[in-house]
């Protein structure tokens, strides 16, 4: 097993160890907010366990994916909706 994998967050490359959750990689990339609310407010993860949907991002083109329940995979392309 390789000791690091690389994903792209809003076009920026981030290198993380396997087992890193996607939300954590987005935070490591220094990207905030994760999404913008219906009134235009910045939002980030709240519950960290798949309940609140505040960490939703677009993963490989699939919109509205919970980044707190997704493990990073090599080459993943992630867009925040901030």
């Amino acid at each position: 097993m390789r000791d690091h994998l690389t994903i792209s967050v809003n076009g920026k490359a981030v290198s993380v160890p396997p087992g890193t959750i996607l939300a954590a990689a987005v935070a490591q990339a220094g990207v905030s907010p994760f999404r913008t609310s219906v009134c235009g407010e910045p939002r980030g993860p709240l519950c960290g366990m798949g309940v609140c949907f505040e960490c939703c991002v677009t993963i490989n083109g699939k919109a509205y994916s919970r980044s707190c329940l997704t493990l990073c995979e090599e080459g993943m392309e992630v867009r925040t909706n901030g």
Partner: protein
Amino acid sequence: MANQRLQSDVVVVGAGPAGIAAACMAAENGRKVSVVDNSPWLGGQIWRGATAHSAHGLAGHWIDRLKKSGVSVMSNATAFAAPSSHVLLAETPDGVLELSWKKLILATGARERFLPFPGWTLPGVMGPGGLYAMVKSGWPIARKRVVVAGSGPLLLAAADGLKQAGASVGLLAEQADWGQVLRFGMGLWRYPGKLLQGAGMKARLLGVPYRCGRWPVKVEGTARVERVTLTDGSRSWTEDCDYLACGFHLVPNVELPCLLGCAIANGFVRVSEFHLTSVPEVFCAGEPTGIGGADSALVEGQVAGLAAAEAWDRARSFFSRRAAWQRFQASLHQAFALRPELRQLAAPDTFVCRCEDVRLADLKRCDSLRSARLHTRCGMGSCQGRTCGPAVQFLFGWEEDSVRPPLFPVRLASLTDVSSPLDKHRLETDKSSRT
């Protein structure tokens, strides 16, 4: 999208301590068992990050035991509907799982309770358990200033974990009064391991002030948390921080039990001594039957798993231990009861429903959850009221009166692929209750 059908004697929903213990017991007693869990890992939230080889002895033991038991484990599978009486649907990244079962064990766990106050929607305000869970999976926390606030023993565990991960925890503010917490702490000698666990945490937390009777009133920052104002009821002060880890104890995940028609009493799933719910052949164990933590859930899971496998005598052998944990659940509930002042924290323009951005002032014009849904869309966003539901229950006393499938947002393909209407079971139940 592919539909996969799977027949099992016993289906377990949730792979936390209760679900793992239940699955092991049923499988070891000759049943064909499947477990579904919505996360990519085993162990639920409490054992997240633990593997069979890690230092966490109990988690390692049980996860290892599950792997050896021949149970089929379906991770990344979110149960979202129960279209007929012995079928459960779960969405996976590849399609839909149609699980048919003879016995069903619900071990859906709990989530943190969040209460609205000005600024609580800013990035950087997170649940203590949630933040700690994310830190275990790589969230960068080293050298960050964290204030931990809210209520419950989870605050201590989270503060301990965050500190060990390199965070600078400036304050741990528990809303319950010192006397209440002290009485709870004094009673811990009755429960094996709890006192040692507490003492270990206390030793490691040395240098972090643990203050009771304190709670947050306001968070400020431009794009994320920069500072939090706290109060003890008479005096207020401000702490600079990068994170506010704030949650008010736990609430049980009862959406799936409700969908299946299980009777609820005082917010928890009502179960028999064998953990059978009011619905035949449906069992429930762990936090949905009473908040008690991992040790309590393990005992309940074993009872439910043995009962589902009809190993009644072995199930009975756990009854005295289970009774002890039920007393523990009651004392937790009492010690960390929420103070009424917390109902006054939100300002008229504070968002209560984060998905639909519904403000407190909008809700004050409503008189029930149903009217709030109709008039403001409160609770109708993607979390389906899981976050604001417990808050409005506390603020206004509004109870959830309608749980409908799909229980989570799912892909359209997941709805079109299934052979029967999602609501068939419910329609039949409604029809029979009307006649």
